[in-house]
């Protein structure tokens, strides 16, 4: 089984992002960048499949500007076999990412693609489902448990009411939720080893994919801020305030 994992380079989850001066875009020029946390989980899952012998080759791919190779290198240091960078300075929408990934999948005949359920910058939660649609493949989204048994995959998904278990025959798409696994820490020797692993660069043009945008962000703004409230001294005062001031109980 050949496994492809999509890793996005995003503003680190600890950074509080703000709009820029004229509200045309977010201000992220000097922000710390990291691999999308859900994608770390996706990488970990693929590496475990390789270690368990269910995956024969595990490949990491990122799409975007040249700096995105950083997160591919991180994935290689975590244990992925090789990397791909689809390089472009253009702004990529989930639909475009899905089309580019579909082109790579068709070129190389992957059996399973694992993505994060959501990129923590755009919070779209779309790409995996779109990729599955474009390939005509089944999808196991928001996975908290994945079992590969020969050519069938069983996926337990986190839902609004608890969890749901599905199964499908490969090929297919899985998107990771937070509780799928706990990603390993990258060890220094592995970072050195990762530098020697193969990282292919390719452009959207070479993949013959139209990357024109369907959406335009016309403004970004801060949400309305809550004004901080007051501290109360004890339970008695709190109940009094909730009952007589806020009138919510």
């Amino acid at each position, binding site marked *: 089984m050949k496994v492809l994992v999509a890793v996005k380079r995003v503003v680190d989850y600890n950074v509080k992002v703000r709009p820029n001066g004229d509200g045309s875009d977010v201000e992220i020029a000097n922000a710390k960048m990291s691999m999308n946390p859900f994608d770390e989980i996706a990488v970990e899952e693929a590496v475990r499949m390789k270690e368990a012998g269910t995956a024969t080759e595990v490949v990491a791919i990122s799409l975007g500007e040249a700096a995105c190779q950083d997160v591919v290198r991180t994935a290689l240091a975590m244990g992925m076999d090789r990397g791909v960078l689809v390089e472009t300075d253009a702004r990529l929408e989930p639909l475009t990412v899905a089309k580019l990934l579909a082109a790579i999948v068709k070129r190389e005949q992957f059996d399973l693609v694992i993505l994060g359920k959501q990129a923590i910058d755009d919070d779209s939660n779309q790409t995996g*489902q*779109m990729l599955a*649609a474009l390939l005509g*493949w089944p999808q196991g989204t928001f996975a908290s448990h994945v079992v590969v048994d020969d050519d069938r995959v069983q996926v337990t998904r986190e839902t*609004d009411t*608890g969890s749901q278990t599905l199964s*499908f025959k490969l090929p297919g798409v899985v998107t990771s939720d937070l509780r799928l696994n706990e990603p390993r820490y990258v060890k220094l020797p592995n970072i050195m080893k990762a530098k020697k692993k193969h990282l292919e660069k390719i452009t959207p043009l070479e993949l013959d994919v139209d990357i024109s945008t369907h959406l335009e*962000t016309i403004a970004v703004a801060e949400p309305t801020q809550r004004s901080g409230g007051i501290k*109360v001294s004890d339970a008695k005062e709190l109940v009094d305030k909730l009952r007589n001031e806020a009138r919510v109980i």
Partner: protein
Amino acid sequence: MTVLVIAEHNNSELNAATLAAITAATQLKDAVNLLIAGSGCSSVAEAAAKVQGVSRVLLADAPAYEHQLAENVAPLVVRLAEGHTHLLMPATTNGKNLMPRVAALLDVAQISDIIAIKSTDCFQRPIYAGNVIATVQSKDSLKVVTVRATAFEPAIAEGGNAMIDQVEASGDLELCRWERDDVTESTRPDLAQAEVVVSGGRGLGSAENFQLLEALADKLGAAIGASRAAVDAGFVSNDLQVGQTGKVVAPKLYIAVGISGAIQHLAGMKESKVIVAINKDEDAPIFQIADYGIVGDLFDILPALSAELDRSVN
């Protein structure tokens, strides 16, 4: 031209989040069609026909839709898309699972989790865990949109009188097999709809200690919620997680107990009307957005709060 709303339901009841999506739809167009795709779900269609603002209910009742697998429902929605300007669904886990598949099959972008409608092609949505609100314009002639239920008033569920049309079902594509649902049983109000939510975090320390929250929730008729840390630690089930990657709630009263207030948590609750925080660390970020805060040990405060609620029933 008309908006098509895809209903979220469990084959017997319409999920309340659908009512919010219907309200969003009525802000776009006068005519709103509502698709019920399920199996043995005629009671849902009958309830849906009474919702104010719905012009026509499309009922696709077939075994292939029983579990609303995206693989089977997406082609149906694609077939019905013609004649509609917008396809809307609440941003529930089902909506998030289905709609991007629909959008990609139609070769259009999706606008996820909208909180406001500026015009028929322009929407607002939170990005970066709600730290920023983006205004997004779509160039597609058909818009595929998921709707954040807390941002729109629910449509009135009674008084409407829509026609119910059966639509032809497609068969089971057999791409995906449903194995089972493990539904968390609870007698409490639904977290997404509750007027009062009592949420616990890592500070609760154990699953047993969540009983302290249960006692408080009982007195307030509240739903229970949790931070990611509490869910990861196994104190409560995953469907109680509130936040960027869990549920978004906006109750009248949200009580955060032993929760520090990470931005990923705030993303799911900061639109609540009144926020209370109980935390022993006076510098915990949760206090910056709380209307009322108590600094102290939750193991002292929770019993005192329950007792106080008993005592002061006017």
